[in-house]
């Protein structure tokens, strides 16, 4: 349940990258389970750990809990070393039946 997403400097910011990686991880897992979905963002809390430098940033989303209607996702962003994150986020996403 991991998804990596890279972002170029200046075109994207870290918060947007974290969020995209979180959604990607969730879409990936729902797709793998063959579950149809429509995602509704509920909330995100971003912690900035150190100043990001002008180079490519990576982010990885990990699903903490996948329920029937709600998903909790944890995301980490880093630049050179995955062990030294520049930012982390927790996300709360609601999943609704697209046919509803």
């Amino acid at each position, binding site marked *: 349940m991991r998804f990596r997403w890279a972002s170029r400097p*200046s075109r994207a910011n870290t918060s947007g990258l974290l969020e995209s990686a979180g959604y990607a991880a969730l879409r990936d897992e729902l797709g793998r389970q063959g579950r149809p979905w429509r995602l*509704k963002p509920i909330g*995100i*809390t971003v912690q900035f750990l150190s100043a990001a430098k002008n180079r490519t940033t990576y982010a990885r989303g990990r699903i903490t809990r996948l329920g029937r209607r709600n998903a909790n996702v944890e995301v980490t962003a880093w630049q050179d070393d995955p062990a030294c994150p520049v930012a982390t986020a927790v996300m709360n996403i609601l999943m609704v039946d697209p046919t509803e």
Partner: protein
Amino acid sequence: MNGDIDTSITDTFDPARVARFILGRAHPGWLGLRYVAHGADWVELTLPWRGDLVGEDGTGVIASGPIISLMDMAAGMAIWSTSGVFEPVATLDLRVDYMRPARPRAAVSGRVQCYRRTRSAAFVRGTAHDGDPDDPVAHIAGVFMTIPWRAA
């Protein structure tokens, strides 16, 4: 805190005047953020609708990511407006609650207030709306850290 800032300097940061320099480059420039209005402790910016900012194809709704950028930038400018000086700030923590999706093809505006400023920290809160400030699409709360020029 605010008391020991020289007022000859505090009068110099004018969000309306510096907006085109701050918003014209880098990520804010790419997004197309624009200045709307400001007060003593708040700033409002707007994010015009654009097809490539849509989150899910076919919906016409601006993604939530650019809204974070909008609110982050408005927060920074609200802090500079409050303290009256342009000084580097770093976001420590930013929470965004999405109350409803924006309307299709609607621009999203964000108004952020700096409600507490100390020597080293700034506390902000704000809302994003798509036309009616009383019917917001998102609410944010954040904490920023001031970086003194010498250390920057």
